[in-house]
């Protein structure tokens, strides 16, 4: 493992506000009050009959109940879904109207694949920091059980033509173009449109590129299950999760998972890659999941007026995109690019964090990202750094589990991670008496990735 001196820690800036570092305009704080999600269900499980709107409304209702927001007109609610019916064009606004929030609360839908939830947090936080809103909820929902099924392109064209036809004859003519194959429905696909490869196959290429072993991946998966189970058992989620439709814990969680069980699973991705042993299994990959999450953000003044807690503040965020189509970068490697840019803006080193929340799209996603940051050549050539970004203390990584164990309802993951990180940071700060800092990173389809810095923030005046 290559080591290089990391940039100087900026602990001395703990007392600084949001921004203050070079190139970061000084703004007021956007604080995280708390979060709520519903337990994540396996596809076709307890939420098989629940829509995205049902789930996001439930996540909102739990959040409203936790913080007494009934009838409150918030600045905005921002969220989205990745697998979305066309009728859900106003998914978030419709959810707000079905909630106990004031119907005068504006909302908009946002979509950035698996980073939807985190991007929503960033968007709301930015408006708060600029003083455009005082409060907001960010989140997302996704269901693969209630996914939209579309008609074929052939049938769609025939139906459109028939609906525009002005005579019966023209209508008949339109339908005459119909072919039997047009009647087969189209299921939604999460394959990359430009490569035709599934996300798993893409990650298998990246896994092979970085030589990530099966054992290392299984170890990440096992830790995810053990950490999440321990968090549930300790009551960590008592004020982060509200049960939904009879599900009281994440359905995918396997507290009794073991290295032996994980090792016995058959690889499902990368089987056709030449010159490499496939290593990605159902056990070390994230399952398809249904769920929803929501995070309450506010200005300090808004939170104080309502006697609401303040867990942390959103310091800054960076979104990156990589060229996985024509270039050689892995589909899910964008966070590897986003993080150093974000750190540079704040003069921080990779080691300057108490907590790391790296979304486990696959166990190997975490490992390839960490490997990349430790690789001097990669960091120089791809990230434009002088040397390796560095390594992290693995005991600070996903300490209460991540997506391999909890599941990953695409747009809901950002909210899950941010609320968890904020609560962990607040607890760490209460323990140590000093500011605790968390690094969040979420990779996404399309070669996208978002990274964010969250810092514990005691209630009170601007930091």
């Amino acid at each position, binding site marked *: 493992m290559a080591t290089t001196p990391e940039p100087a820690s900026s602990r001395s800036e703990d007392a600084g506000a949001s921004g203050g570092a070079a190139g970061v305009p000084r703004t007021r704080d956007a604080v995280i009050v708390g979060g709520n999600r519903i337990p994540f269900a396996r596809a076709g499980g307890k939420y098989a009959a629940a829509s995205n709107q049902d789930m996001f409304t*439930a996540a909102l*209702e*739990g959040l*409203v*109940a*936790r*913080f*007494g927001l*009934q*009838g409150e007109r918030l600045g905005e609610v921002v969220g989205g879904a990745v697998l979305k019916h066309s009728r859900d064009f106003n998914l978030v606004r419709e959810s707000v109207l079905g909630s*106990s929030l004031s119907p005068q609360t504006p909302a908009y839908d946002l979509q950035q694949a698996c980073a939807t939830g985190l991007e929503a947090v960033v968007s709301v936080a930015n408006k708060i920091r600029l003083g455009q809103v005082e409060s907001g909820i960010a989140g997302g929902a996704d269901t693969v059980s209630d996914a939209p099924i579309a008609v074929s392109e052939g049938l769609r064209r025939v139906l459109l033509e028939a609906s525009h036809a002005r005579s019966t004859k023209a209508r008949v003519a339109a339908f005459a173009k119909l072919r039997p194959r047009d009647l087969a429905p189209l299921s939604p696909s999460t394959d990359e449109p430009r490569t035709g490869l599934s996300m798993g196959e893409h990650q298998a290429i990246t896994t092979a590129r970085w030589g990530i072993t099966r054992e290392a991946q299984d170890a990440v998966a096992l830790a995810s299950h053990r950490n999440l189970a321990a968090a549930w058992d300790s*009551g960590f*989620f*008592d*004020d982060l*999760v*509200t*049960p*939904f*439709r009879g599900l*009281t814990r994440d359905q995918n969680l396997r507290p009794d998972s073991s290295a032996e069980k994980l090792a016995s699973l058959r690889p499902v991705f990368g089987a056709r890659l030449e010159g490499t042993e496939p290593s990605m299994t159902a056990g070390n990959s994230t399952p398809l999941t249904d769920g929803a999450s929501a995070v309450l953000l506010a200005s300090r003044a808004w939170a104080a007026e309502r*006697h*609401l*807690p303040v867990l942390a503040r959103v310091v800054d965020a960076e979104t990156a995109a990589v060229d996985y189509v024509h270039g050689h970068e892995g589909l899910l490697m964008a966070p590897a690019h986003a993080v150093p840019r974000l750190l540079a803006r704040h003069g921080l080193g990779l080691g300057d964090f108490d907590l790391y929340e790296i979304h486990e799209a696959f166990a190997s996603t975490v490992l390839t990202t960490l490997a990349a940051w430790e690789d001097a050549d990669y960091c120089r050539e791809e990230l434009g750094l002088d040397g390796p970004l560095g390594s992290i203390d693995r005991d600070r990584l996903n300490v209460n589990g991540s997506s391999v164990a909890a599941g990953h309802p695409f747009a809901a993951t950002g909210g899950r991670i941010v609320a968890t990180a904020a609560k962990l940071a607040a607890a760490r700060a209460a323990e140590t008496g000093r500011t605790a800092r968390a690094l969040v990173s979420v990779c996404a389809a399309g070669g996208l990735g978002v990274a964010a810095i969250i810092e514990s923030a005691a209630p009170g005046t601007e930091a």
Partner: protein
Amino acid sequence: MTDSYLKAVDGGLVKGLAQRLGLPQPVVLRRHDPSAPLVPGPVLVVGGRPDAADDADAVARALLGWDLDVRQARGDAVPEGVERWGAIVVVVTEAKTPEDLHDPVLALGAQLRRLARCGRVVTVSRAPGDGDSPALAATRAGVEGFLRSVAKELRAGATANGVQLVAGAGAGDPAALAALHFFLSGRSAFVDGQLLEVGAGPAWDATGFDRSRPLAGRVAVVTGAARGIGAEVARTLARDGASVVVVDVPAAGEALAAVANEVRGTALQLDVTADDAGARILEHARSRHGGLHVLVHNAGILRDKLLANMRPAQWDAVVAVNLAAQLRITGHLLDVGGFSEAPHIVSLASTSGIAGNRGQTNYGFSKAGVIGHTRATARLVAALGGTANAVAPGFIETDMTASIPLVPRQVARRASSLQQGGQPVDVAEAIAFLASPGSTGITGQVLRVCGQNLVGR
């Protein structure tokens, strides 16, 4: 939880048939309706001497203050011209010998047939005290047996309850009048045959007190609030003006959130048996609502089993949730001075805790234990100007009682003077009454909400 028999006989097709067969004839009870008068007709005050400024007169003047049509019967003179009495209040606080009951009792008897549907009889008497002479003790104790028998004689949703003044308390004191008001109102629909001891209590400034929102400005915590009686308690306390924190186990969070949003309160997912439950409740109530005035220990579970077949876990779970959790939470709040001024604690007991129930040794122990700690807690909170009381529900129509098989359920429903099960709101009303600042002076009591169940007191 529909009582279809009640629907059928109360104005339904089979009313006449039920009458001829001598079957129970329950009626739909008069419950709280802010737009309805306190009682369904004029109020007759019985007792007292003519032209004396006595307790009967003080009560009558208080009733007039509530904008009621009040008539007084002194001696054997009964006012004419009233078709139906909304309520008859019998004031016998000054009775010294058994003979002194003769006039008021027979005056009541003569008017009983003219009591309106869902009307009220309320006695105001003095509780027997340690220093009473035998004759005085007999007179005062006798009122209890008389009252309970009157309650059993009444029909058509009418109830009889008694206010029992303890030494030092006056008939015109706020607490005595609060109890009288409760018994007259629709809030006490399912309270029947009960005597409530009322002490003088600490002085209470009623200035600015709004009887329609008696809990305005108070913060209330209700455990076990996700469903059933607890949810109804939350609704009732919120209706009465309280800011409500609803508490239930995390697994019940979905229903809990719905209740919180309905009452515009906050949800706290918490297992009351957790060691730090009291601390977390206090932290939440203080930081989010600015204090803690009312604590309703409602969370409770059943693990029915004959003692001969009882497994340790079944005994332990019931004792932990129903009793030990209440002790630990209240204990913590008292230890750290967590209550805001004049706290009101109300705990859920049960008629099973009074009369016992086959297969419920664990439950009966826990609920009798609640009654025990309520008396002791009352002494501890007295120093804070607060009260601690218990409410003992009888057969209440909830999901829990709906699971009882048909025949035993019907028997249990009819085995009370009101010949029906109570509604969760009936229990909630009693709790809200005991939680209100006006009830200060009523402490260490067990108020049964059982329609005068034939079992127990």
